[in-house]
């Protein structure tokens, strides 16, 4: 039914274009590398859309069919260590991986098209498209993995491509620092991931997802996992929490979130693709992938997921209210929304009514990918136009950028959860799931929803209304002049940048009507999703209140924001400084680790280890000088050595056997 060839082509096409553009892009077709990359992604997207259609309709008994099974399309044995342990490379289709390939290829396509205009005239444009292809390949490989080792390989590959793309403007020190920060922090979290998968696969004796899930969630087979414990927790809890830690690193959950805002140093379309829509949800994806184990065998680990997610969503939303760099606002908003997805998974059950959280989480992942990519691409268009990231340099842009304005507004309404935009539906499901499972988390989610509406409209009003910029905007005379000149030149933006905005805008309106309950559920059986208007009143009213507050504060020029900030003096400053988390990291690394651990170790290394190594090296080279004399060049000597060797072996025999 599923032909492995064209499914394999979905990830392999970007892989080929990576090599093609990477090896030949610069010398053979400097102008057309970008078009080649875009075309390849287009084909990849069409294929994934076809696979999705096939999977959800024909594949499993129709749209309303009973089950969405996991299908291993193929599994190629890559390395056979022993008859029982092998590393495979394969493709697994199930509802979430099918959804993910559609999202990844679609957003990637949009970003490719957008970049045609946005990156025009950049020096290393073929490198840029080459890295984008690498990223798309790795992300597709990640979501299609059949086993935990394969996912780890692609997990690291997306990490490296994210590193390359954040540091794309490698002449800017900030970009280099940001790429290093992102790489080191996610690597650090990945260590937890690696240990986690080693624990899980050691105890379940397999790397394969299906077997692993079966072994870990069947009580009879998971005996060792639960029995053997460390520091009072079972091996299974440790494994799952560590895997989640890796996911938290990629998904920028507290306390690993600090790399994501800095990652905004990369080109804006990259932020849209990697740091908003796809890679940062890898953490959500891995939890969803191992969800049966989490929910059936270890609810404790799931509680960790829920609490981390809920705390992060509130925490990041508060910070987002105070930032002035528009991409950083969006970055914190991303962190907050991923927190939403995480806690939705955390409060979910495996089957029946309680499993609403899982569906809601995936639903929100889907809608969020759309409207957040739209927000980022819109921000990209604005930055392209204004040549600045600071809100202070913007204001009143609604006339200059009408299309951007409308699409951006749609995205803002979607993320704020105003009906009938897509974010409304997914957020409602999440809140409903939280309400049913844990009231505290529900209230956290509710407050976050209000704050979200506030900060996103603060952003919106600051960019598009608010005719004169707030107090701390400087250097805006020059940028204003450049507006004026640009405006005379005619169109607001190149067509390649407008098309993705419009497509994403339309999707952000309609995506909420997708029948997710029938498509994606934790155990594969459809879940009836009922829409309860009464339940929605509180969140929608709170969101409207948030929007209104934002309008009062930022709709027109006034001094209310400063007064509000002054009133909240200490808290505002703490939030503006991102609650000093970066400083805590710096303190721990620089003061604690470098000083009290690093320095003594360095001394030990230099004076004890290095000296001994030098001595070893000297003695080795001395020895090699001595034995070189054995190589005399005389045949008779060599013959004596041969006889000597034979006699030596004989003596050895005598010595050992007697």
């Amino acid at each position: 039914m599923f032909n492995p060839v064209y499914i394999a082509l979905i990830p392999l096409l970007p892989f080929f274009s990576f090599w093609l553009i990477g090896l030949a892009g610069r010398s053979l077709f400097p102008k057309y590398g970008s078009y080649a990359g875009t075309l390849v992604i287009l084909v990849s997207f069409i294929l994934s859309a076809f696979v999705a259609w096939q999977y959800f309709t024909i594949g499993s008994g129709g749209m309303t069919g009973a089950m969405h099974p996991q299908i291993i399309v193929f599994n190629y044995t890559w390395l056979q260590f022993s008859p029982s342990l092998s590393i495979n490379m394969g493709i697994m289709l199930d509802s979430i991986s099918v959804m993910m390939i559609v999202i990844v290829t679609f957003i990637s396509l949009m970003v490719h098209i957008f970049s045609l205009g946005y990156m025009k005239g950049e020096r290393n444009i073929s490198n840029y498209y080459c890295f984008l292809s690498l990223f798309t390949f790795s992300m597709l490989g990640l979501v299609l993995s059949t086993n935990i080792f394969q996912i780890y390989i692609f997990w690291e590959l997306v990490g490296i491509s994210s590193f390359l793309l954040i540091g794309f403007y490698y002449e800017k020190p900030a970009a280099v620092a940001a790429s290093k920060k992102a790489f080191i922090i996610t690597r650090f979290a990945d260590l937890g991931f690696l240990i986690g998968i080693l624990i899980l696969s050691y105890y379940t004796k397999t790397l394969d997802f299906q077997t692993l899930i079966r072994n870990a969630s069947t009580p009879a087979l998971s005996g060792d996992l639960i029995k053997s414990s460390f520091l009072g927790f079972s091996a299974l809890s440790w494994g799952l929490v560590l895997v989640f830690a890796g996911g938290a690193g990629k998904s920028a959950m507290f306390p690993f979130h600090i790399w994501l805002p800095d990652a905004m140093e990369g080109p804006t379309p990259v932020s849209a693709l990697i740091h908003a829509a796809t890679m940062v949800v890898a953490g959500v994806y891995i939890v969803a992938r191992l969800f049966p184990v989490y929910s059936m065998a270890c609810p404790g680990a799931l509680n960790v997921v829920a609490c981390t997610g809920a705390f992060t969503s509130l925490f990041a939303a508060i910070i987002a209210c105070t930032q002035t760099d528009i991409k950083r606002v969006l970055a914190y908003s991303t962190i907050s929304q991923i927190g939403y997805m995480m806690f939705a998974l955390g409060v979910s059950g495996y089957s029946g009514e309680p499993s609403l959280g899982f569906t809601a989480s995936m639903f929100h992942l889907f809608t969020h990918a759309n409207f957040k990519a739209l927000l980022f691409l819109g921000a990209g268009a604005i930055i392209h136009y204004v040549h600045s990231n600071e809100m202070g340099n913007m204001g009143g842009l609604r006339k200059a950028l009408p299309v951007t304005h409308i699409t951006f507004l749609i995205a803002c309404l979607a993320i704020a959860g105003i009906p009938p935009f897509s974010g409304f539906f997914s957020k409602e499901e999440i809140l409903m799931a939280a309400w049913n499972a844990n009231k505290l988390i529900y209230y956290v989610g509710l407050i976050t929803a209000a704050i979200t509406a506030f900060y996103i409209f603060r952003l919106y009003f600051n960019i598009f209304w608010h005719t004169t910029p707030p107090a701390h905007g400087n250097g805006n005379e020059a940028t204003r002049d450049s507006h004026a000149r640009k405006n005379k030149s005619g169109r607001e933006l190149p067509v390649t940048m407008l098309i993705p905005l419009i497509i994403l805008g339309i999707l952000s309106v309609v995506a909420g009507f997708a029948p997710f309950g029938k498509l994606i559920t934790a155990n594969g059986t459809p879940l009836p999703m009922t829409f309860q208007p009464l339940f929605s009143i509180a969140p929608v009213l709170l969101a409207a209140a948030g929007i209104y507050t934002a309008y009062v504060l930022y709709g027109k020029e006034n001094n209310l924001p400063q007064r509000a900030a002054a009133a909240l003096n200490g808290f505002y400053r703490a939030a503006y400084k991102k609650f000093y988390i970066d400083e805590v990291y710096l303190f721990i690394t620089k003061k604690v680790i470098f000083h009290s651990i690093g320095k003594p170790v360095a001394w030990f290394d230099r004076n004890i280890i290095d000296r001994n190594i030098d001595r070893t090296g000297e003695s080795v080279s001395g020895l090699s000088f001595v034995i070189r004399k054995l190589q005399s060049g005389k045949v008779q000597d060599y013959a004596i050595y041969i006889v000597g060797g034979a006699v030596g072996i004989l003596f050895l025999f005598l010595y050992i056997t007697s």
Partner: protein
Amino acid sequence: MIFVNMMDLMNAELGIVIILFILLFMKILGKPESNSTLLNLTNALLVLNLVVVLFLNSDGVLFNGMFHTNHTIALEKGILLFGTLIISLQSFKWLMHHKHAAEFYILLLSSLLGMFYMISSGNFLIFYLGLELASIPLAALANFNLKEKKSSEAALKLILLSAFASAIMLFGISILYGTTGTLSFSEVSLLISGGSLQILSIVFIFTGFAFKLSAVPFHFWTADVYEGAPIAITSFLSVISKAAMVFVFISVLSPLFVSAPAVWYMVFLIIIVLTMAFGNLFAIRQNNIKRFIAFSSITQVGYILLALSAGNKPGAAAAIYFMMVYIFSNLGALGVISLVSAQTGLENISDYRGFYKTNPVYAWILSISIFSLAGIPPTAGFFGKMFLVIAGASKGNSMIIAFASLNMVVSLYYYLKIIKAIFIDPNDSPVPALKPGFSIAAGLAVCMFGIIFTGFAGGFYDYVIKTCGF
């Protein structure tokens, strides 16, 4: 009937014999200046033979067990033939202007034929015959740079010492015959009881093998011969003849060790330690790149012996797989080296400074080959070494594994010295841009393909495992 069987089971050997006759007739009848026809024809015939060996093979025994073959042996022959083919492609340029190209091939293929008989032998007589057929033409080949004294010296050393080693081995075989009354491998291995005379004989036979494998302390001829011989022959000696010995080792010697396994393991350990350590210590000091390859290949033998010391099927499979990988890596490196040497006559490591500036492509080929030799992932060399070490670890001796790993680190030092020369060290007059012909480029391309794809695609290893029968 016997004739049909022969056609079927001996197809590899008969193919080589036919090529040999064609070459002889061409030499006698042909015009002296038609080198290119001769070379291309030989290469084409070798390819044809390779196809026959790889795809038309069956299990069977001939001449009352004197000659036997099976899928593993066919694979081994295929690997040897493939390596010879690459060497032949790489020496195209050198042979184009050589007066005695036909003789070169006649000698080379005779040697290969000897190796084939050696691998297929079921009896010490055939084995010994094959061994001599394999080694005597090599001495003549080592002398193929007719005008160079070094070349003659290398040939003389090779023939004297291999005669010496053969004599010791023959002595061992005759003692074994004396104690068991038979020369057939299968019968001998049943009659081995571990008596002192038998141990004496096995040690002598082992000495002969160790000499051919150039394990320490039987290795001293290696550096001198490798340096003096033409590069094509150095390649052949360091890769093909070593691979042949490893294959024979797998099929011939391992049954003999059944008598006193603990003691043999001890002997192996000592030889492995010496081989790795000496190979590395010598290689560190080398400036001549050919001598360098010689010594580094001694170290590689240490790793192969490590896998063979396990004495089980995974060890044998790992060794066969590694030989395949090693052929690609070593011939990739030697291919570039011979190209440089043929065009400029430069053979020192310091001559490679700034090589990347003038020849980026060849610099990468050389580097990738060297990475593969050093065992750096993701090249095939990494997987090859990994399987060797895993097989060696099956005995549960962690000390030797640690020692092997440390030696890998040491060897990385001198491998990286070349990389550093190629990419980093400045040079005012680097090697000028190289101009290979089609054959050399094809040979190098095959090596690159092998290094990269046998590494990534697990299928090759699976294939080896499957043909080894587990």
